[in-house]
C-alpha cells in the first residue's frame, strides 16, 4: 500500500539539482513530488516519480547515490483544519512523522500529502476506523 520515494544525495554545488531533473526529463520520467532537505554542506532530494524503478536505475547509472524508502500518500481535506486534524489523530496515537511534503497531484477539495513514518505498524493500526484515507500507487498512476 505504501509508495516508493527516491532520495538522492546532492552535493552542495550549483547546478546539481538541475542535472538530476534534466536526466529524469530526458528519460521521460515525471516528478510527482519533490522536497529538498539541506545542511550547509550537502542536501537530499526526496522525490516521488511515476516510474521509480526506471528512475533509480538511471540515477545510479549516472553515479548518483540514492536510497529507496517506503512512504505513505494520504488524502487531506483542502480546508482550514484539514492537516491539523490528520496530524492530531497521529499525535493522539503516538505516531511520529519524520517528515512530510505535498504531492503536485490533487483533486478538487482534497490535497495529497506524502508522510514518512518510522513506526509503520502503529500507523497502520491507527488507520483502522479513523478518517485517514490512504492513496494507492494505482490511484496516483505510479508504476
Amino acid at each position: 500500500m505504501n509508495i516508493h520515494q527516491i532520495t538522492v544525495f546532492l552535493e552542495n554545488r550549483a547546478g546539481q539539482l538541475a542535472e538530476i531533473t534534466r536526466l529524469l526529463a530526458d528519460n521521460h520520467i515525471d516528478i510527482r513530488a519533490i522536497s529538498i532537505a539541506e545542511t550547509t554542506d550537502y542536501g537530499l532530494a526526496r522525490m516521488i516519480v511515476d516510474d521509480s524503478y526506471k528512475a533509480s536505475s538511471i540515477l545510479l547509472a549516472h553515479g548518483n547515490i540514492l536510497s529507496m524508502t517506503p512512504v505513505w500518500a494520504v488524502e487531506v481535506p483542502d480546508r482550514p483544519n484539514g492537516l491539523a486534524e490528520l496530524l492530531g489523530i497521529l499525535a493522539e496515537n503516538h505516531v511520529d512523522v519524520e517528515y512530510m511534503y505535498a504531492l503536485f497531484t490533487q483533486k478538487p477539495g482534497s490535497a495529497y500529502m506524502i508522510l514518512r513514518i518510522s513506526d509503520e505498524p502503529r500507523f497502520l493500526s491507527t488507520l483502522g476506523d479513523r478518517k485517514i484515507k490512504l492513496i494507492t500507487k494505482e490511484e496516483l498512476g505510479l508504476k
Partner: protein
Amino acid sequence: MPNYYQPEIETMPYEELRALQNERFLKQVQHVWDNVPYYRAKMEEKGLTPDDIQSIDDLHKLPFLKKDDLREAYPYGLLGTPLSECVRIQSTSGTTGKRVVAFYTQNDVDLWEDCCARAIVAAGGTKEDVVHVAYGYGLFTGGAGLHGGSHKVGCLTLPMSSGNTDRQLMFMADLGSTILCCTPSYAAYLAESIHERGLQDQIHLKAGIFGAEAWSEDMRHDIENKLGIKAYDIYGLTETSGPGVAFECCEQSGMHINEDHFIAEIIDPDTGEVLPEGSKGELVFTAITKQAFPLLRYRTRDICVLSRAKCSCGRTHVKMSKPMGRSDDMLIIRGVNVFPSQIETVLLQQGYPANYQIIVDRVNNTDTFEIMVEMTPDIFSDSLAKITAAEKELVGALKSMLGISAKVKLVAPKSITRSEGKAVRVIDKRKI
C-alpha cells in the same frame, strides 16, 4: 615453499652479504669521487677523501644528499657516467617543485629490473602468470620497472598503463590477468569498479603488487577482500632507480630491501645522527651498484623502522616497515603533526572509501582543516538525522586519531579524482 628469483643473493648469509656490500660500497665511493664533482665538493667540504672511507663502518662520515641537492644539480650535476653510456631517463611524478631526472646505463636498467623481478616472484609470479601493469608508463618509474621485471620472470606482460577503466577490466577478464601492478588507490578503484559492474566471476587475479603511495593495513585488507587476492607492497624512489628497492614476501610484514644494491640507514631527521636498528627515523639509501646516477646517503624523507629479525621466507635482507608517511607528507596543523595515512585508516574503519582530499588553509591566523570524504551507499539514507549522526561519528573518530578537529565535508561518490599516478591527497593553501 617460498620462491626466489635470485636465491643465492636473496638468501645469502648476512656476513657474506655484508662483505659484498663493503666491496661494492668502497668501489662506489671511488666512482663518485672520480666522476661526480657535485658530491666530491660535498666530501671536500667535510675534509673527506676516499682514503677516509675504509669500510661500511665509515659510511656515517659521508655527507647526505637531499631532494634539494637533486634540484640544484638538475639536470646533469649528479651524473656518474658520460651521457653516451646512458640509455634511459626516468623522472619523478613532480607533485612538488621541480622534477628530478634520473639516468640509467644498460646495466643499471638490468639491475633495476632484477629487483622488480624479485618482487614479482616473491608475490608468487612465475612464467605462467599474466602480469597486468596498470602503473603509468612514461617518465614515471612504476610502469617501466614492473614491466621490465615481468619480462625477466618470463610472465606474459600486459602494458596497460593507467586510465580507461573499461579497457582495464575487459583485458583483465578476457586475457586472464593474474597479477595486478598499480598504485594502491588505483587498485581500490578497480576493485570498486569490478563490483559495480558485477564482474567478480570473470576476474582471475591472485596477487597484486602495489606501491608508489603510502597505504595502510586497513586498505590492504579492503583491497584483498574486494579482489580476492594477496596484496603486496613494493617500495622505491626514482632517485634510487624506482620500484623494487624493497618488496614484500609471503609474510607481508615489512619489505626486504635489496641490500646487494642498496645500503639502508635510519637517521634522526633533525640531527642526522644514525640510529640503532629498531629505531623509528628517516630512511637513507646509498646505492652501491648504480653507475649513471650513483646517490650516496640519499635522504628519502620516509619515516620507518628497519628489522633484521629472521624472516620465515628465508630471505636474509633487512626489512623496512611500511613508511609511516613521508616526513614531507606530514602536515603541521594548529601545531599538531598529521599524516594523511592516519586519516585513511579512520575512513576505512568507519566504512568510507579511502579516497579523500585534505584541504588546509589559514583564516585569521588559524589553520582550517577540512577533509572531503565521498558519500557511500551504506551510509546514505533518506534521513538527514542518520547521515549527520554518521558524520558526527566520523568526526569523533578522526579527532581521537589525530588529536585535532577536522571539518568533514561529504561529497558525491567518485567526485574526488582517482589517481592513476599518485593521488593528490593534500591541498595546502596556507601561505606561510
